[in-house]
């Protein structure tokens, strides 16, 4: 995971709960990194550890932490740092989600050390589509949920996500039915 993700987590915690809490989370997680470099890849374990420690410190579930991270990533980090680029991804939620597979493919080229997930889109309807999520990482599907929810908010489009296939249930990959 690139440092930008961990930075987003750091910002979220500090912004919401203060420096002390972030230090506590780092202490709990055992992550002793003072500064995350955005374009530097970090071991995925660090991101997981931070998510677990955050859940523990804030006394919420890991899933909720990941959803919060996802939303924050879109609405805060993505918007602040990649705002125009993000907006160029589509005029509306549907267009953005439709472009998402291409977008991630470009990312893969631009960040060769990154192993970005792959997205596919199917069943495109006027008010819904199926978003297929393929990732080597396990357990970040709630992060995807948070990202999509964040996009909904970015485009002022209330969105509902229903997971219709799940690796936890023995499926090949996760599929979200995204409705708006």
């Amino acid at each position, binding site marked *: 995971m690139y*440092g*930008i993700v961990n930075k987003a987590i750091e910002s979220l915690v500090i912004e919401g709960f203060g420096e002390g809490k972030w230090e506590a989370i780092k202490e709990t997680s055992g992550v*002793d990194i*003072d*500064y995350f*470099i*955005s*374009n530097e890849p970090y071991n995925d374990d660090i991101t997981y550890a931070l998510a677990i420690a955050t859940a523990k410190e804030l006394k919420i579930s890991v899933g909720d932490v990941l959803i919060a991270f996802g939303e924050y990533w879109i609405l805060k980090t993505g918007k602040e*740092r*990649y705002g*125009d*680029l993000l*907006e*160029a*991804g*589509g*005029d509306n939620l549907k*267009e953005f989600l439709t*472009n998402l597979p*291409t*977008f991630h493919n*470009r*990312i893969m*080229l*631009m*960040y060769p050390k990154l192993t970005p997930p792959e997205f596919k889109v199917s069943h495109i309807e006027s008010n819904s589509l199926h978003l297929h999520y393929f990732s080597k990482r396990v357990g970040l599907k709630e992060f995807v949920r948070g990202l999509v929810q964040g996009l909904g908010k970015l485009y002022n489009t209330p969105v509902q996500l229903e997971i219709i296939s799940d690796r936890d249930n023995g499926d090949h990959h996760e599929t979200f039915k995204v409705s708006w």
Partner: protein
Amino acid sequence: MEISLKTEQLNKLFPFHILVNEHLNVVGYGKSVLKLIHLTIGTPFFNHFTIHRPELLEFTFDGLRTLIDQLLIINHNQNSKLLIRGQVELLEEANCFMFIVSPWFSDVEDLKKNNIGLKDFAIHDSSIDLLHSFKAQEVANKDAKELFAKLQVQKSELHRLSLIAKETFNSVIVTDRNGRIQWANKAYEILTGYTIEESLGKTPGSFLQGELTDKATVQYLRERIRAGFSFDCELLNYHKDGRHYWVRLSGQPILDRQGNVVQFFAFEEDITEKRIVQNKLDEQRHFFEDVLNNIPSDIAVFDKEHRYLFLNPIAIKNPELRKWMIGKRDEDYFIHTNKPISIAKKRREHFDSILESKKLTIWEEELINKEGKKDYIIRNMYPVLDEQGDVKLVIGYGVNITERKLIEQQLERKEKSYRDLFNYSQALICTHDLEGNLITVNPAFCETIGYSELEVLGNNLMKFVPENDKEKFRPIYLHNILSEEKAGGVFRVLHKNGNVLFLLYQNYRVEEEGMQPYVIGFSQDITDRIKAENDLLLAKKITEESARAKEIFLANMSHEIRTPMHGIIGIADLLTRTKLDDEQENYLKLIIDSANNLVVIINDILDIEKIGSGKFEFESLDFKIAEKLKNTVQSFQYKAKEKSILLELNCDFDIEQIVKGDPYRLGQILNNLISNALKFTAKGKISVSSNIEEKEGELIIKCAVTDTGIGIRGDKLSVIFDPFVQASSDTTRKYGGTGLGLSICKNLVEMQGGKLSVESTEGVGTTFMFEIPYQHGTPIINQGNEDSINIQASYVYNRILMAEDVEVNQFLGRIILESKGWQVDIANNGIEALEFLKQNDYDLILMDIQMPEMDGITATKEIRLFPDLKKSTIPIVALTANALVGNEQEYFDIGMNACLTKPFTEEKLFFAINKVLIHTID
């Protein structure tokens, strides 16, 4: 292979292409061009664009041909900032140039400014990726700037810390992981006296510590360093010059990224002065704690929030609990120890009131102790104020007053008991001062004398004393109280209604230390009792006077009847000695019987009176019981023969048996019973049987008088011994009698310790049985008996002086005595008797007791005083008609020798004369 593209495909692959014909006019363009440029078909290309590079020398169709295979950078004429990059190719068939270009953006923001989105680019177009790369670079630059800024801050901080560490007054050292000094600051050199160079490579303990250094602390430090832990302690070190000093040593390990200890950083603060002050403070604190801990009351100190700052062991014995309570409130403590929270709330209320009033508050608390009993604590709590007058601390102390409380409760109960006793007592209780002024009175006092408490208190007792008694109040009552500490007796007081009350009182003077002496009085209203006693005394007096009058009357009556009876019987007896015809003899017998009956009646009345008044006396003489029985029965043989009734006596014992007792009363009893038997038996027989039984040293004489008379009805048997009662009213009418005989018999028997009973069958007969216990008698000299008329020639002068005032008795006496050969002188009274005796010599004097001028008693006393021994010792026989008083003993006491009660028979007279003369001879 020739290929051709459809317009749609061309638009998808090259959305920004522009077609220019040989006239250099725009003839076509891609789908995304219009998003960037307002372009109109047929307008000259160069109206819109300028070839920026390479330089176009000739603006012709051929000129454009020179641009083929070169990277074109094209400016938009209307928007100088818009750069287009790409290449141009000649489409020969169409004879036009196709510019295959893309807008060149160096910033993502340009997309937005030009309203361009991802979909406007061909997918293969890497312009977006380039923009992304730009963005990544921008982010990286931003990161770098942030990192640099952060590093700058850290550097500054580090520098500052380094400076602090270096220049701080406190000693700072850095050691390797084994504690060997690697770096130290200037303060270290000053504190220890050692230079840094001298210290490098050494452990501080090796040269800074000495024998006074606490070994346990050193051990602690070693263990912490060895384990790679931080440490914090106070330590005594030695300066290079030998003096020691105290440091507060705080250190912590410095870790590498892997968490391994690489160094230790230690900070040493010189606390020598602080330590000295602290020691003094500790000493003071210990001193005060010792004082507080040893005060025998529970002490607690609170902060303004009611949190415990201090508790002494009396308050909380358990040291762990005491420690736990510091910083806690009472509510915490009560919940922790499961005690009633209500007490904590009450304490809190008092505490809050102290905070507000800033004054001492005292209250009493009830607690249940471990034994389940109540403990009473008096709590005192007062605030300690700061200079501004605000509450700084609150000090509380409690004293267990359970014992005192229990005593108080006992006292209260006792006091209530005494108060109840005082209030509800029927006795009159009061206190007064030594002058008699009333201090307290109880309700009974007020109720009895009719005044209210208010009307009484403060007044002098004398006010309530009757006028006549007032003069005694001070000299007697108060004097006794003052001199003897108590006074008792009967007090007369006046009721409010004027009635006089009698109070039986017992008053005491009370003197107690610290109090004015006073008098406590207890009294009882005995007015009714006094009245009853007076009534009783009056009644008794009346009764006694009445009894006395009755006695006198009976005595007089007895005397006045006996005196003439004596004459009648005596004269009749004389008459029997004259020659009489049968009829006269019969009449005379009737006269004698009637007279004797009358005497019996009088004797019975007198006896019953004696019995009733308790004046009956019994003789104690030795006599032969069989002889007494025989003589008594014998005396009735004559009458029995007259009625042709057989009268027999059967004695089943030794006829010589002598007993000691009253033979006369035995005779009287038998006389009565035999007389009754004769009276109620018309035919048949009367048998008197007797036997003796010895029991417990006494001789029990048992007698039975059995007749064959009319008998008594069973329902009358129980009343025949009552005085004045006979078996039937017919009995009185038919047989006469007073009805006193059996009552007298029963009394005589029982008064001698015996018992009398009766068995009877109406129409068959009656048996009266009695038994009397007698003492064993002693043999007696034969003194003769009144039945044996035996005039002994034992006289000297054959001359008797008779002092008798009643003429008929004088006559009778003279006739009887002279008939026996005596010369008789008659004196009419005592004075004459004395004269006769002075003038003459006599063998004996018969002295009537009741005489005019001088009675027989006075005369006897005079005679006994005669100087002539012969005359003064002359035998004197008292003659008296006064049988009631029974004071024969008095006659003997004054010197008389015998006593005859009138009427007496001739036999009795001579028996008495004989008896005294025999004694005289003796």
